[in-house]
């Protein structure tokens, strides 16, 4: 089977990329000034004691040995011990990472649904009022900052109208799926905003371009209704581009989510990573970056495979 082999080959391709990413994060962390052990223990420990603590984390070893040890820890010891919190890194990040993924997923869904919707409305009404309005919205929205937009959403929908919770992930007394969804709306929309507008633009452009293509003329000349041409032919032909943009935008979304988390007080890894950077918690930073990079690579892989599968020219 060529396809299975192809997928395995692409999976294998992730390994060298991950290696480069891990080596870079490792190096950048070590090369920036500041020392977490000094910062934490210098006040009440002797230099000898500090040296001993350093040795217990393996920080006295040559750089390459530290790297090898860390990579081994990634597979066997939960990403190594956090220098500040003294727990395996993945144990600390795990639950919050799931929360981040939930928020990202919500953002992706909002982005895909509303991005395509706005794009279709604008594209089918090319040069008419709905198109102009939608493009005005897109133009204005693209220039908003995520922070500001999030705060405005909170002010309108939570403080003034009282429809949705201000922040956090669940109400104090818990409340199941409905409660979670209510908490997801505002951060999801803020996270999705920019990507959604990018997607809307590409969808609109795709529809306009495909509308002028020869095959659309063929089917129009055969009396196929406009709605069906749009739904079947144009839809199918812009699908690969839409999937591609969504895939790319998931990457942007993950980065955006880290900011949104702090606005909405969402218990994700964003806050943790910011703290880890401040405390120079090498192992935690590295573990977090590797997790995010892995997500990124997997999303890219799935996108590529999906786009290939959607293109009849590449399928056989």
């Amino acid at each position, binding site marked *: 089977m060529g396809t299975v082999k192809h997928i395995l080959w692409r999976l294998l391709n992730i390994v060298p990329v991950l290696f480069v990413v891990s080596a870079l994060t490792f190096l950048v962390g070590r090369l920036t000034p500041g020392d977490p052990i000094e910062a934490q223990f210098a006040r009440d420990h002797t230099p000898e004691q500090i040296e001993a603590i350093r040795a217990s984390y393996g920080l006295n070893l040559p750089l390459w040995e530290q790297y090898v040890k860390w990579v081994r820890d990634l597979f066997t010891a939960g990403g190594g011990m956090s220098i500040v919190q003294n727990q395996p890194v993945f144990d600390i990040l795990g639950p919050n990472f799931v929360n981040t993924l939930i928020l990202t997923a919500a953002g992706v869904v909002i982005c895909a649904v509303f991005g395509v919707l706005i794009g279709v409305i604008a594209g089918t009404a090319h040069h008419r009022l709905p198109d102009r309005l939608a493009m005005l919205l897109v133009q204005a929205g693209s220039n908003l900052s995520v922070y500001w937009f999030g705060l405005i959403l909170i002010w309108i929908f939570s403080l003034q109208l009282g429809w949705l919770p201000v922040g956090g992930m669940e109400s104090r007394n818990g409340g199941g799926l409905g409660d979670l969804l209510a908490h997801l709306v505002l951060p999801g929309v803020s996270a999705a905003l920019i990507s959604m507008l990018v997607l809307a633009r590409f969808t609109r452009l795709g529809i306009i371009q495909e509308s002028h293509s020869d*095959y659309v003329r*063929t*089917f129009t000349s*055969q*009396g196929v209704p406009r709605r069906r041409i749009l739904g079947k032919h144009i839809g*199918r032909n812009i699908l690969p581009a839409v999937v591609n943009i969504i895939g790319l935008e998931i990457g942007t979304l993950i980065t955006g989510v880290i900011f949104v988390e702090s606005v909405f007080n969402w218990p994700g890894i964003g806050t943790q990573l910011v703290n880890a950077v401040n405390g120079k918690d090498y192992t935690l930073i590295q573990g977090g970056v590797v997790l995010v990079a892995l997500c990124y690579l997997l999303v890219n892989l799935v996108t590529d495979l999906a786009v290939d599968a959607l293109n*009849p*020219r590449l399928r056989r």
Partner: protein
Amino acid sequence: MTPMTAPAIPEGGDALLSVRDLSIRFGRGPGAGRVVDGVGFDVRPGETFALVGESGAGKSITASAILGLLPGGAELTSGSITLNGQEVISATRSSVTRFRGSRIGMIFQNPLASLDPSFTIGNQLREIIGLHRPATRKRHQHEIAETWLRNVGIRDTARVLAAYPHELSGGMRQRVMIALASLSGPALLIADEPTTALDAVVQKQILGLLRRVIGETGGSLLLITHDFGVVSYAADRVAVMKDGRIVEQDRRERLLTAPAHEYTRSLIGAVPEIGARFRLAERGLPRRLGPIRENRPAPPAPAPPAAAGPLVTLRNVRKEFVVGGLGTGQRKRRFTAVDDVSLRIERGEVFGLIGESGSGKSTLARLIGGLHKPTSGEIVFDGSTVSDLPRAALRRLRPRFQFVFQDATGSLNPRIPVGEQISRPLLRFGKAATRAASRARAAEVLDLVSLPASYLERYPHELSGGQRQRIGIARALALEPDLLILDEPTSALDVSTQASILDLLLDLKDELGLTYLFIGHNLAIVEFLCDRIGVLKQGVLLETFHAAELFAGERHPVTRELLDAVLPIHRDAPREVPVGD
């Protein structure tokens, strides 16, 4: 609004399609252009009616108007179109959607893009069948699709039904388009330049097929074309359009034998025909296509070649391309584009290379022009072996062989004035010492291609297609090359423009003592222009011969096939009725 020059429309009353006083304009306000101006004609049941004209004549837009498919910005200002007495469209209202597909079918110029690339042929045919016969079941739809593919001469129907458009050749796709447009048995089939994008051999098959399909469904064909060969082969009646008006319409035989209008005469005269150069020579006329003018200066006597011996020699040249391989997801394989070709091009001759698309003629030209390196074999240009030359030496040699490409628009930079595009290579290759010298030379070559020096400041989009190709030739000539490699330089041009470019090439060759390598797929043009002709098929040079020996008995079957594919203009004799393919 009927123009005075409009010929009377023969009133029969039994017309299938009636177009009356049709006017279409582009844009609004004072800058609006009237692209179709009071056009009227009838298409009778069962006949093939050809609308002939050059680009910009308004023939395609007339055809689109019949189906209500006018491009954005175009507007019907007056006139009416009726089918069997029922109004299809008029300036005030349109009921065209009822007629689309079921009563009027349309076939477009570009078969490569006219089918949806994302669905199989079977899927697209079934969609149209389902639309026109909503009651048919899926299995039955499949059978109808299969029958129609067989009707248009496709034998392996199972493969084609399951194929995507990109898996079929251009000719196959045009067959599928014909099936798609005719399967509902429309009374009128409109074919807009159906064979312009196809090879000569395929063109003849497709035209034959169109006539057969019309014969079977009992419908009429409205054929839009710029090619009088096509008219002569396929049409019953003809209307000639110029600048949005019909200047003349008549039965085919009458129009081809004794054209009444000056414009028709000049169009027919511009078509290169097999044997024309020898007929001209017999009558003591120069070998030129354009109208014979009294004051036309006699072409200069051919300049003698500077030295004897071949200018280009190819010995066992072979070029392989590697397709696929690591990272492409496809298996790596080799593909031989040029296979063991040996030939000589003598100084001062015009060597023609002919073959169907994909036969390797452009690759061979690129090898000779040093744009590709051969996989094996050697290419000698004026004593130096181009194929082994180091980069710097090859660069010094480059000004001596120059290219003129088919796509004149694509080979000019749209953002730079054309003068700059001619003078830049002069500076780069050290042919001109100063900017002023290069400008002067650019003006000089512009004069050679009969364009005023004021054109130096123009941008490519301000020029017509023919003028752009003249610029392409001027740019190549500026470097004073010995060899001009002409890769289908006229196949994107109108007949009259093509005639003037071919005449220009002949004039320049005589004046400057150039050597040409001319690539084409139309044997009539190659025969008219070239001294010797080489025939390529699948990368193999089948034979080379002198143009005068084209009809000799020992010609290769492939050459005969190409000769057979030329559609001559039958002036007096009744047409051989093309049936089948």
